[in-house]
């Protein structure tokens, strides 16, 4: 049981970071959003595994909420928006793909180095995986900054949120259920609002790249 718990935890956290790195690698918007879904499922799995191991009902409920919200609902909303423009691809990010992958490698090393102090406070199987969560946050922020398309930026934002959630689960066995629900609904709200903005921008002009805008039109 213990070996399975350890393996499941490690693989789950690894998949979360792996999906973050893959979103930097792939260009198609639909692929990126599907990766976001996989990441949400992995994050929920981590929470469920932790909940089962510590017999914590709140954690189990939180895990279930994450699986539904971040694994299914949010990617679904994003996919619906991208269906209006199914062939959209990230063609010219500010930092090209190989350079961003090298930057991701550097960020992963950086997060390992900087989380060492945090981990040494309470070493356990779960806390030793904290660098993976910090790396997800950094990679998500990097994506938010360097991608031109609005959908890619939204994906980056959600990556940051997922990373924070992973760190919270690993370090403190999760946040109180109410806080988790509140923050998840906040993210859903942000995504829905951004989608409305996107839709209205698209209706008024052809170009979707945020960097082509110099001022806000009405």
């Amino acid at each position, binding site marked *: 049981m213990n*070996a399975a718990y*350890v*393996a499941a935890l*490690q*693989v789950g956290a*690894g998949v979360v*970071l*792996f999906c973050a*790195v893959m979103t*930097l*690698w792939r260009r198609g918007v639909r692929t990126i959003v599907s990766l976001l879904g996989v990441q949400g499922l992995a994050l929920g799995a981590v929470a469920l595994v932790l909940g089962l191991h510590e017999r914590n009902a709140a954690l189990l409920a939180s895990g279930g909420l994450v699986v539904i919200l971040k694994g299914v609902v949010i990617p679904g909303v994003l996919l619906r928006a991208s269906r209006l423009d199914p062939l959209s691809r990230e063609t010219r990010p500010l930092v090209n*793909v*190989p350079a961003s*992958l*090298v930057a*991701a*490698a550097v960020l*992963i*090393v950086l997060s*390992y180095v900087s989380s060492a102090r945090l981990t040494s406070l309470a070493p356990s199987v779960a806390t*030793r*995986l904290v*660098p*993976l969560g910090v*790396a997800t946050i950094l990679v998500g922020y990097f994506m938010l900054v360097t991608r031109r398309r609005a959908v890619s930026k939204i994906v980056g934002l959600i990556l940051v949120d997922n990373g924070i959630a992973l760190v919270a689960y690993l370090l403190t066995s999760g946040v109180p259920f109410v806080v988790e629900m509140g923050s998840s609904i906040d993210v859903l709200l942000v995504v829905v609002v951004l989608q409305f903005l996107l839709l209205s921008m698209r209706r008024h002009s052809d170009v979707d790249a945020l960097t082509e805008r110099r001022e806000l039109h009405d």
Partner: protein
Amino acid sequence: MTTTLWSWTTSLLQVVIVGVGSLILIGFMAKVKARAEGRVGSPVTQPLRDVRKLLRKERLHAHHSSLVLPFAPMIITATAVVAVWISPLVGTHPVMVSGADIFVIVYLLLTGSVAAALAGLDAATAFGGMGSSRAMTIGALAEPALLVGVIALAIQSGSSNLAVIVASTLHNSDHAFGPVHLFALGALVIVVIAETGRIPVDNPATHLELTMVHEAMILEYAGPELALVTLGEAMRLGLLFSLVANLFFPWGVATSSSAAALALGVAALVAKLLVLALVVALIEVRSAKLRLFRLPELLAGAFALSVLAIVMGLVTR
């Protein structure tokens, strides 16, 4: 069976299986691709027939070439044979396995690539230069991913000796299915596809200027030298596939010096090679060849996966 006899038998079996078997493996991959595309395709033993046909032909050397041209195929084949000879493919104790460091194998393969590139430049043609340039670029970009991935495995097993890594994976099944191995496997599969020149990195069946990489380097070879080059390249492919198979899925490797264990080792190696060849052939069917300047993305991704593997190794100690 005494240990020395067993070692020599293991090594000889490995060379024979990988030597002859890789040619058949290439034929098998071509057959799978043909069937998947709805054709009948040439028989699986076609590469063997090609080699035999080439041996009967005349030896031709380009006008401005030097000794490098006839020597390079011998170096490619010799380094591949020695690498196969010392690696633990059928059993964990071939001859000289104590010197079978994973870096030795990687750099032996590099020697072969360098020899091929120099031969391409020796012919004094534009095609040769083009092939060498592109092949060395791909090699230079794949090398970091390969080395870092291999180092991730070495850190986890505590040694860079191949036999120790294989033995350690056999004994710790949590290593075998752990995140380090998963990410290193992903990175190394991409690197193996790049090093052996399969789609999506390079098309081994093309002779169009714009798309040739490896074929351009060996364009000037004819007759017995082309046969040797084909054999050498096939052995490199067989070696790389067998290494991936045995480093990540070592079950079946002969660990004791008995005839039954050896037979099981041979059967396991053949089975693993066939499965891996099937997977690679299906990847080839499903994807298209990438532009040369999209390759850095692919190989940078492999590099990121390798770094991920090392960091996972550090956090899961």
